[in-house]
């Protein structure tokens, strides 16, 4: 079952496992995972401070990376890094990623990998560069989420994220997304719309952090582990749900125990995917990308003639103890 078949509409992302061939060690069937982890363990591993972060991965994947700065509007956000690089056997690419810090000092400088609007606007600028010069776009996703402070609100955090997602939806160049650590909600999605979305085996990707969900739904941030289990945010769950197309294996103890081996695994997977995508005509690529996202979601559409929903009578509602 070839990736090209999917582009021709023969199989959809939502059909889950196995629609990418298990080449270059890519795991496309979660049952094939040798180390089964609980979601909470994945959360810990994805957030492990010694896990390779984006710049380290970029350094290992590519040659001659030239980092580019600025959003051409306000400032250069260190929480998003990107630029032009060369990939063995593929050629020049544009790469964009969120960047966490390795030390507390660096984390503060990079707002813990939580981008401001100017970070997303830098990303958009780089996407357009890839499109203009017909270079493939590679993104690495690793962020707790978009920065939630008031300056970010004032400078249009929501609009920046929306614009970033929308730009990726229609971008006329192949896009490969790799979730290397934590995919924190919309702040992650802004860099994560692609033709192929891969994730490291212990990565996570969630609509809300387990702590946030615990505080809102279980009324106690201490229930984060329960929330993590419920949210199905681990890479193997994402594979089953069709949100991620394949998993890149990590060393048995997690990526941080052998960053080099991890990066090598990412590189093999990336080269194979870019090679395939490079051979698909752009119009077909865009159709397939549309269909990939079009088919994600679960709804129930009752047959005609099903019983209508009855609104609770007013008197019962006001009599019901709250």
């Amino acid at each position, binding site marked *: 079952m070839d990736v090209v078949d999917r582009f021709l509409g023969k199989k959809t992302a939502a059909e889950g496992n196995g629609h990418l061939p298990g080449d270059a060690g890519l795991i496309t069937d979660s049952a094939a995972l040798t180390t089964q982890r609980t979601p909470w363990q994945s959360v810990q591993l994805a957030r492990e401070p010694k896990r390779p972060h984006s710049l380290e991965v970029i350094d290992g994947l590519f040659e001659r990376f030239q980092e580019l700065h600025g959003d051409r509007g306000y400032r250069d956000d260190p929480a998003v890094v990107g630029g032009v690089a060369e990939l063995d056997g593929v050629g020049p690419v544009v790469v964009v990623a969120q960047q966490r810090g390795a030390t507390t000092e660096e984390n503060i400088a990079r707002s813990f990998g939580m981008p401001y609007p100017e970070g997303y606007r830098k990303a958009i600028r780089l996407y357009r560069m890839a499109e203009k010069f017909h270079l493939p776009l590679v993104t690495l996703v690793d962020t707790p989420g978009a920065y939630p402070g008031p300056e970010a*609100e004032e400078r249009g*955090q929501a609009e920046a994220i929306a614009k970033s*997602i929308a730009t990726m939806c229609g971008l006329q160049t192949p896009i490969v997304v790799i979730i290397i650590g934590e995919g924190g909600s919309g702040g992650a999605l802004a860099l994560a719309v692609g033709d192929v979305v891969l994730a490291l085996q212990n990565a996570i990707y*969630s609509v809300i952090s387990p702590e946030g969900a615990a505080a809102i739904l279980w009324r106690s941030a201490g229930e984060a582990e329960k929330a993590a289990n419920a*949210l199905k945010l681990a890479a193997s769950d994402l594979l089953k*749900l069709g949100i991620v197309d394949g998993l890149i294996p990590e060393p048995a103890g997690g990526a941080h125990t052998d960053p080099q081996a991890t990066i090598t695994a990412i590189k093999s997977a990336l080269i194979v995917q870019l090679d395939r995508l490079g051979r698909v005509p752009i119009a077909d690529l865009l159709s397939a990308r549309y269909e990939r996202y079009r088919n994600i979601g679960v709804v129930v559409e009752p047959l005609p003639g099903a019983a209508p929903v009855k609104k609770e009578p007013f008197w019962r509602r006001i009599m019901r103890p709250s």
Partner: protein
Amino acid sequence: MPFGRQRKEFPSHLWTQCPTCGEMLFNKQLARNHNVCSKCDHHFRLGARERIELLVDKDSFTEHDGDLTSGDPLGFSDQKPYPQRIQQSQAKSGEKDAAICGSARIDANAVELAVMDFEFMGGSMGSVVGEKLTRAAERALAGRTPLLIVSSSGGARMQEGTLSLMQMAKILGALHRLDEAGLPYVSLLTDPTTGGVLASFASLGDIIIAEPNALIGFSGARVTSETIGEKLPKGFQRAEFVLEHGFVDQVVPRAQLRERIAYFLNAFRPSARDLRWSL
């Protein structure tokens, strides 16, 4: 306030107190005034059906995809199982999910409409909202009509996990096609419009209109103020603040919405003008 009447003489199913000016408002009159305080213009929230009635030409609304209901893709249960929450919300609101979509006319302009309803699980966006809004955008594209989306939401629906997050990308894919086709998309922001809804379709209208004092923000105010350890500026995340900072086109009182939206639909309607541009 009528002289001599005590609070207990205003049963809550007949009267509502305005949170801004304190006036006691008779519910029937409040509804006739489209849930706007007749004394101080405080805008209460408005249900989706009432919103549709307010905006469209009389009897012009045809609902589509009204039968879609949520599944339980994650088998999610916090303090209640997700299917139970859905059932309870359906019983309470009379609606199947948090958005109502259909075709209508606004000042004779054919338009595809999607209206969110905060009463249903806080207007949260899950697969059903995603599917309905995507279909509305696809219908607009197929029929070459404008699209109007009225947002009212606390954000993405947690009980569907990352599938809810994906709905943002799904809807934006369809909106991108609409944009490429040169069709107008008007985004109306009502109280509250937050989280993943604001960070996707709500922020990308060709025209973005907000209701007065609507809460429009990406992060919850508590998270924001905890992040910086300070109190927030006055009016933070309210429509007027967002206007000043450049992220909505206009703040329009509810009574003027229909006419204002019609103005833009008329202005952007294809005409002989378009032939001239294509020559």
